[in-house]
């Protein structure tokens, strides 16, 4: 049982390049989330998904797109990377959106945009 895994762990991009971050969970969780963590800002929700085939915007969605084609995977895409997107990205999942949904987090992806 691997929990929540993220690929890659580190990445350096040049401004304007694109990339996709992959999140996978093996706990059969319905809800999945993408956050970014910046110093002094805590975690901010980018996008989330309440089930396969559904996605919704979070607090800071601009510049990002997501897809949830399979229940176990949640992809985060950057179409044209900007230096402001330099951050640590965390994926999380939870069993459902009701009261017992503590989240399980992946180890993070450290992204640097030059």
């Amino acid at each position, binding site marked *: 049982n691997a929990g*929540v895994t993220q690929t890659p762990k580190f990445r350096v991009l040049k401004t304007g390049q694109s990339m996709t971050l992959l999140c996978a969970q093996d706990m059969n969780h319905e*809800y999945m*989330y993408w*956050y970014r963590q910046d110093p*002094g*800002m*805590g*975690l*901010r*929700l980018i996008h*989330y998904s*309440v089930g396969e085939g559904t996605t*919704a915007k*979070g*607090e800071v969605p601009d510049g990002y797109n997501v897809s949830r084609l399979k229940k176990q995977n949640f992809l985060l895409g950057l179409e044209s990377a900007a230096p402001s997107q330099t951050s640590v990205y*965390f994926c*999380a999942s939870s069993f459902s*959106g*009701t*009261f*017992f*949904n*503590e*989240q*399980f*987090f*992946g*180890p*993070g992806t450290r992204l640097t945009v030059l």
Partner: protein
Amino acid sequence: AQSVAQPEDQVNVAEGNPLTVKCTYSVSGNPYLFWYVQYPNRGLQFLLKYITGDNLVKGSYGFEAEFNKSQTSFHLKKPSALVSDSALYFCAVIHASGGSYIPTFGRGTSLIVHP
């Protein structure tokens, strides 16, 4: 709008002393409150939660938190701190939005336990 405030960026405590990490919230309706811990270069780990019932909630690693509705607070506590408790602590509140439940996190408090 829902919000969570952690008024202290850093808390320093000596090993063996009690510790408190503060959290206040603002949410319409009943709050669902959580504490998470993050060790360096790791993802967040769940510590405890308040959903309903007893205002004192016990969690992992000897931590507990007290829900105070009148003060809209959910402070994290531990009777005797360990050096290994040094980490970043996040308070979070879950709120309902169009049938979904969206988490909002505080900015985090760095706990430093001195030997």
